[in-house]
């Protein structure tokens, strides 16, 4: 399938609409002009651009400072507007000369129910993927000269279609080689990709340190010894030009596209001088929007170990993406690629890693060849498993349920599922736990002050009814106010937000509430978000809230999922073992040629920040297991006892309040020689990750087919039928089969 270039898309977007407004519309509008129109503020205050009426519904307004355009430029704008309007008129004339769309069929299709709800967070339904070959640009309707001009001014016109297609062919060819060139295509100034011109001196030292350090038995020695003290020691010395802290509070994360492959597939590109693939943080991230956006867009690329041997990220225990995907598939749709976060898919499953007896964490590292990559590749699985807490050892909890009862919660019985979920949770609470209830529609109100009387809570939850619009900000604000008043330092103080994430009313976008959530989390009030419903569902907001709130984000598609999160894993959901848990994996450049982290794209932390304990990272609840997968390419001739990679985990222990670090070394000899010889955990994880990669449309899963994966998954499911996760794996196999039929019918 050919890829449309940006120019072609710009031209398609600019195509005139072959449709007149319905007859009578003009009169209807005119008849509604009120006799007196108030024009009080004309010329005195506020820019219309900054504060349009109805602006309250912009889900997450970008902060719009007052217009910065100098007045002296206004005549220019007036002129360009004039040109555009003239152009508009011209194009209308062109339109009028063309026959109108005669197809009632087309109209039918467009009024198909889905189309009304594609929505800001909605997804293109992909069930019709196969039929959708973009029409060749040659058939594109002619653009008006003025639109051509506007396109030209935007850098999206080409002299002719011939040039255009040459261009596009060239673009396709380049995709493997030149990200920077691609960026330059529309005449945008090229940001120099920051690649160290020569290996910085410390790099050499580090390599030596790896060898001497690791081979010399530093395991369990001085923290940081293994990696030569590099993290934190040599900012920027690792080839990652731009330190990339997480900036999750950027409004741009909303609705972001994480699916785009941004770096060449170096497997295919056969080595030789590849640059600019430094783990996703060498992008020109310093621009206002570019930062979060670019990072969010890309799937992690392969990184040359010679350039950057450290992979650093914050842990994430969320599992919502898996249940979101499950919901999509069970409804007969392929999941929106943007909703697929591989780490959340992978972490949905219990891999049977044993939790530690006394320590906070048990670490595990393993590797094996995979069926999804060449023979020189290995899949590495690092698992971090948190200590479990017996229900009776759990600290008492002060829980504030913040429940969205807006009109949208009425759909598909979302509120009903919330109620039953909360009732499940209530059944697991015990004497000493306190629960309060806040609801919000247009406004928030405290339905129940926190009380020990769980029967009273149950009655209040049972009586919830949907009403009005959504003011999530007010709901959370009321919830935090309540939690503050009833704060108990010795308890788990937690807000539980149940919503479909649609936040359409509120004084501001999420920035203000996000800022508050971060502060409250530091004070010890954590926020767990439970997502309900689909269609108009705001996955990103829910994830963002939980991330800022140091809590967990789960998507509740079924009562079983509610049971899993709120009953089986209640201790993990309520009680945090570790805060700001970060992982750094150091690869041995003498064994690993290149590596790629699967998932955790939005958890990236700059290497040198690994030992910066002010960096916000992941919170891990009791009993939680977190798995990180890497695909690595081995160098030829790596001998058995060489270290492959060393896993470092750094966290702040809730028990002691102290920052701790642990590590786990993986040697060549510890890796399985074949996929068949790999542990069940690794086999399952590789299938899950590949599923996610295909759903995301990852560049690295291009050659893979869901059909083949489904057969593999069935095999794995049969093998693991008897294990504790047997039912989950069987379901996974079914879902992959379903996705396969949807995508490759």
């Amino acid at each position, binding site marked *: 399938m050919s*890829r*449309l270039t940006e120019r072609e898309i710009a031209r398609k977007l600019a195509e005139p609409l072959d449709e007149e*407004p*319905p007859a009578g*519309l*003009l009169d209807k*509008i*005119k008849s509604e*002009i009120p006799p007196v129109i*108030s*024009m009080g503020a004309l*010329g005195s*205050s506020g*820019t*219309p*651009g*900054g504060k349009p*009426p*109805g*602006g309250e519904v*912009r889900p997450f307004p970008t902060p*719009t400072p007052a*217009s*910065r*355009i100098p007045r002296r430029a206004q005549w*220019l*704008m*007036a002129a360009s*507007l004039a040109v555009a*309007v003239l152009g508009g008129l011209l*194009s*209308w004339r062109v339109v009028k000369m063309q026959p109108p769309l005669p197809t009632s069929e*087309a*109209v039918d*299709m467009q*009024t198909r129910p*889905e189309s009304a709800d*594609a929505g*800001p967070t909605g997804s*293109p*339904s992909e069930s*019709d993927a*196969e*039929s*959708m070959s973009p029409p060749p640009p040659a058939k594109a309707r002619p653009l008006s000269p003025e*639109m051509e001009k*506007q396109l030209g001014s*935007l850098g999206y016109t080409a002299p002719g279609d011939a040039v255009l297609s040459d261009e596009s062919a060239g673009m396709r060819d380049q995709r493997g080689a030149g990200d920077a060139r691609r960026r330059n295509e529309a005449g945008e100034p090229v940001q120099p990709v920051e690649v160290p011109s020569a290996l910085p001196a410390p790099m050499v030292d580090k390599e030596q340190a790896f060898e001497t350090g690791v081979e010399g038995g530093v395991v369990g020695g001085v923290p940081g010894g293994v990696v030569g003290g590099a993290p934190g020691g040599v900012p920027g010395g690792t080839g990652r030009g731009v330190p990339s802290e997480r900036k999750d509070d950027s409004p*741009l994360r909303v609705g972001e596209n994480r699916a785009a*492959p941004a770096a060449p597939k170096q497997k295919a590109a056969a080595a030789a001088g590849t640059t600019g693939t430094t783990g996703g943080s060498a992008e020109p991230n310093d621009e*206002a*929007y570019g930062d979060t*956006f670019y990072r969010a867009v890309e799937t992690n690329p392969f990184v040359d170990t010679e350039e950057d041997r450290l992979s650093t990220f914050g842990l994430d225990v969320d599992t919502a993406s898996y249940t979101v995907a499950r919901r999509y598939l069970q409804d*007969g749709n392929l999941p929106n690629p943007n909703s697929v976060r591989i780490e959340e898919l992978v972490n949905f499953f219990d891999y049977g890693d044993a939790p530690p007896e006394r320590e906070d964490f048990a670490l595990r590292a393993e590797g094996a060849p995979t069926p999804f990559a060449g023979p020189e590749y290995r899949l590495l699985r690092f698992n971090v498993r948190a200590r479990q807490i017996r229900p009776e050892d759990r600290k008492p909890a002060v829980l504030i349920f913040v429940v969205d009862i807006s009109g949208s919660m*009425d*759909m598909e019985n979302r509120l009903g599922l919330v109620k039953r979920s909360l009732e499940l949770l209530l059944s697991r609470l015990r004497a000493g736990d306190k629960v309060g209830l806040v609801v919000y529609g247009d406004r928030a109100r405290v339905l129940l002050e926190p009380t020990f009387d769980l029967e009273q809570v149950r009655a209040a939850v049972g009586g919830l009814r949907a009403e009005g619009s959504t003011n999530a900000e007010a709901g959370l604000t009321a919830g935090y106010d309540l939690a503050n008043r009833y704060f108990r330092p010795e308890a788990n103080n937690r807000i539980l937000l149940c919503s479909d994430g649609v936040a359409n009313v509120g004084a501001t976008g999420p920035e203000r509430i996000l800022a508050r959530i971060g502060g409250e989390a530091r004070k010890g009030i954590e926020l767990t978000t439970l997502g309900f419903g689909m*269609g*108009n569902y705001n996955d990103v907001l829910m994830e963002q809230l939980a991330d800022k709130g140091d809590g967990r984000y789960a998507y509740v598609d079924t009562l079983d999922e509610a049971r899993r999160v709120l009953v089986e894993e209640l201790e993990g959901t309520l009680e945090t073992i570790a805060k700001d848990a970060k992982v750094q994996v150091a690869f041995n450049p003498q064994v690993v040629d290149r590596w790629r982290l699967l998932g955790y794209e939005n958890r990236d932390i700059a290497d040198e920040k690994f030992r910066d304990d002010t960096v916000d990272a992941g919170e891990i609840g009791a009993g939680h297991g977190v798995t990180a997968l890497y695909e690595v390419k081995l160098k030829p001739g790596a001998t058995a006892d060489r270290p492959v990679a060393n896993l470092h985990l750094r966290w702040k222990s809730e028990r002691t309040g102290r920052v701790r670090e642990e590590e786990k070394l993986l040697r060549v000899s510890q890796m399985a020689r074949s996929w068949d010889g790999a542990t069940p955990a690794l086999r399952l994880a590789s299938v899950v990750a590949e599923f996610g990669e295909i759903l995301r*449309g990852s560049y690295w899963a291009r050659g893979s087919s869901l059909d083949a994966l489904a057969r593999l998954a069935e095999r794995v499911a049969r093998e693991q039928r008897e294990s504790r996760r047997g039912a989950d794996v069987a379901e996974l196999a079914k879902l992959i089969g379903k996705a396969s*039929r949807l995508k490759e019918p």
Partner: protein
Amino acid sequence: MREPDGALENRLVAELAAGDREAAERLVERTYRMVFGLLRRLCGDPDLAADLTQETYRKAWDALAGFDGRSQFSTWICRIAYNTFLNHLRRPRRLVPFDEAREAAVPDPAPAADVIVGQAAAGDRLRRAVMALPEDLRYTVTALFWGDLPVKEVARQEGITTVAIRKRLKKALQILANTLEEDAR
């Protein structure tokens, strides 16, 4: 030579401010095609687009008190139209039929793929891809292409530079290219 449109719009707004109701009619005549076209492409449904166009103007009259004439009327109304559309999306009652219909269609959703062919489907695919863009990128694409607004106007309205608008557009087109490519796979 004719009066430039921007200046004409400004004059009409000034006349409206002076109490000339007919100026409002002139403004409607000048802009309603653009508003309808924009909404038509946003929602994909001509009837709905007509309703939303009417709603846009109802809102505009109420809101004119807040209009200070620093941006063009057409720029301003474009934003109102866009917000009206977003508001529409969030109306639960509008969404209920969607879910019911979808659930009813669940037993075998696959055949739908065969039904949708041709250019109209392609347009719809593009529309839905635009819908899936991040908020600010989506507005940028809508305003530039479907509202026919000049870059500078959109930049001023958004309170950012024209360079930033071009960057947004660039990103939007990249995402659209990826989305359409993935869809087509």
